[in-house]
């Protein structure tokens, strides 16, 4: 193992010899450094004056064209630049001063031992014992017990609040699995436009169109934002021949109506709204992490970090020709969680 050419122990080489700086030996270099430091401090002084002058001199609605920034508020730019130069002048000046003129010889300062001498230690123990004795801590166990219990119990209110805020785990899981698309009374739910909340006729959806859709039940919702966050749906119409000929494409087509398909807008990666539909490639792109879904193959993931396809919402039309969802999503929407089966 050991190399015979190496000595048994290395000698401590110690610190390398100190090399003096130009400013330590040459008075002209020292003078130059002094002028540089003073120059930096002067820059700071002038900038501070410039800041105060522009604060009063420039109106706060003056706009000006600044290269690389564009047309913007002149006062903000002036204040920012002058403040930055004022601070940088002080900072650079101090650093340059320390590096060129302040002493740079290495100095070793030994630390005193951490352990106190025996006399001080005995004295400290004596003080503590005398304090406990004068408080009658050992003579009155009732006080000791009740004070300990009171202090110990005080941690409970904090713990109870923490545990209570976690909520009912069963109910929380149910909320992850359900959306307001779930049919309660057997009556299919109409699809409505996101902003106007008007129902959509199948004939209104032309090929290449995209509708941002909510369930009609959003009108009775008491927690609109929470419900919308899970129930948002994207409705697209493709030419029926655009779907892939394999099983995935057939399933996507059969769950839609005449080429109109509806998919959850909540990304299966971390729940961003997937809304970037390219009508020529039929790709759906998530803006957060670039997960890309192929609508012609049942929103299968073709790129990015998402692991599962977007859940499809089965749709059909009612007697009046409006698009309806006869059942909720067949699987939980959105990102994975521990209790999810797949």
């Amino acid at each position, binding site marked *: 193992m050991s190399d015979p050419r190496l000595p048994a122990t290395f000698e401590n080489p110690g610190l390398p010899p100190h090399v003096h700086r130009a400013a330590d030996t040459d008075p002209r270099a020292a003078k130059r450094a002094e002028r540089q430091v003073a120059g930096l401090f002067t820059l700071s002084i002038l900038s501070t004056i410039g800041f105060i002058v522009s604060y009063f001199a420039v109106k706060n*609605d003056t706009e000006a064209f600044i290269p690389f*920034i564009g047309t*913007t*508020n002149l006062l903000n730019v002036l204040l920012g630049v002058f403040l930055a130069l004022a601070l940088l002048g002080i900072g650079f000046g101090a650093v340059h001063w320390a590096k060129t003129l302040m002493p740079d010889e290495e100095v070793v300062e030994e630390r005193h031992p951490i352990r106190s001498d025996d006399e001080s230690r005995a004295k400290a123990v004596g003080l503590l014992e005398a304090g406990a004795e004068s408080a009658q801590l050992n003579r009155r166990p009732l006080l000791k017990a009740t004070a300990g219990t009171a202090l110990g119990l005080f941690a409970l209110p904090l713990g109870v609040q923490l545990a209570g805020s976690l909520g009912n785990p069963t109910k929380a899981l149910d909320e992850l699995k359900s959306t307001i698309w779930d049919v309660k009374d057997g009556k299919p739910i109409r699809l409505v436009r996101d*902003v106007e909340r008007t129902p959509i006729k199948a004939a*209104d959806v032309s090929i290449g169109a995209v509708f941002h859709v909510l369930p009609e039940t959003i009108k009775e919702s008491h927690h609109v934002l929470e419900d919308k966050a899970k129930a948002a749906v994207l409705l697209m119409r493709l030419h029926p021949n655009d779907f892939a000929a394999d099983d995935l494409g057939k399933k996507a087509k059969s769950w839609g109506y005449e080429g109109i398909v509806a998919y959850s807008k909540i990304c299966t990666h971390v729940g961003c709204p997937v*809304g970037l539909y390219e009508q*020529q490639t039929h790709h759906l792109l998530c803006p957060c992490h*670039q997960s890309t879904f192929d609508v012609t193959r049942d929103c299968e993931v073709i790129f990015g970090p998402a692991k599962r396809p977007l859940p499809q919402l089965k749709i059909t039309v009612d007697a009046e020709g409006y698009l309806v969802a006869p059942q909720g999503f067949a699987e939980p929407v959105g990102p994975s969680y521990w209790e999810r089966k797949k």
Partner: protein
Amino acid sequence: MNALAARRRHPAAIALLLFLGLALVGATYSLFAPKPAQAAVATADKVADGKALFQANCATCHGISAEGTKSGPTLIGVGAAAVDFQVGTGRMPLSAPNVQAPRIEQVKYSQEQIEAMGAFVASLAPGPAVPDKATVEAEGDVALGGELFRVNCSMCHNFAGSGGALTRGKYAPALYGVEAKHIYEAMITGPQSMPVFDDKNIDAKGKASIISYLKTVETQPNVGGMNLGNMGPVSEGMFI
């Protein structure tokens, strides 16, 4: 002649000779270069004019009767609005093959020629017509327009209309400095990657409101410093 010969070794001679050579080549090229075919637009029949313009300038990619080829899609049924948008924003004729046609300030055709080509394309099959001035410039509700824009458009074009990236080099362009008419036409025709937002989806009032919102965002004064492209909290967070 002797004076010229005496100066043939002058330092400027080589530069002068190069300049003369380049000028000669340029002039000869401009005499013989193929010129873009121009159909007369003076006749009354717009469809015939449009057809002539189309066959001279567009048929290479879109096919001799606009049926489409491997290089370009069919134009049957796209309507005059699509022609007005694509040619009127300089996207067509395509300057170079690329993932997507960029907007170009210098439009290649006059408005008359664009209308003629639009009339020809509209005569092939019914499609969206160019919206009239009153529809496009109708006073919209800025608040409603903002809500519609954030729900329907902002995922690609950004909440302030400053554009964003799509897949594989494609992108949603910024909407600043675009004519109201062209924004309207883009919504009803769905150019390139953009889906169609026809009147059944967002009605004429909604579209006018979206345009009003965009124009309001574009003209509102910037009271802060650098807006960092209006890209939202990500870019702003990086700089603070």
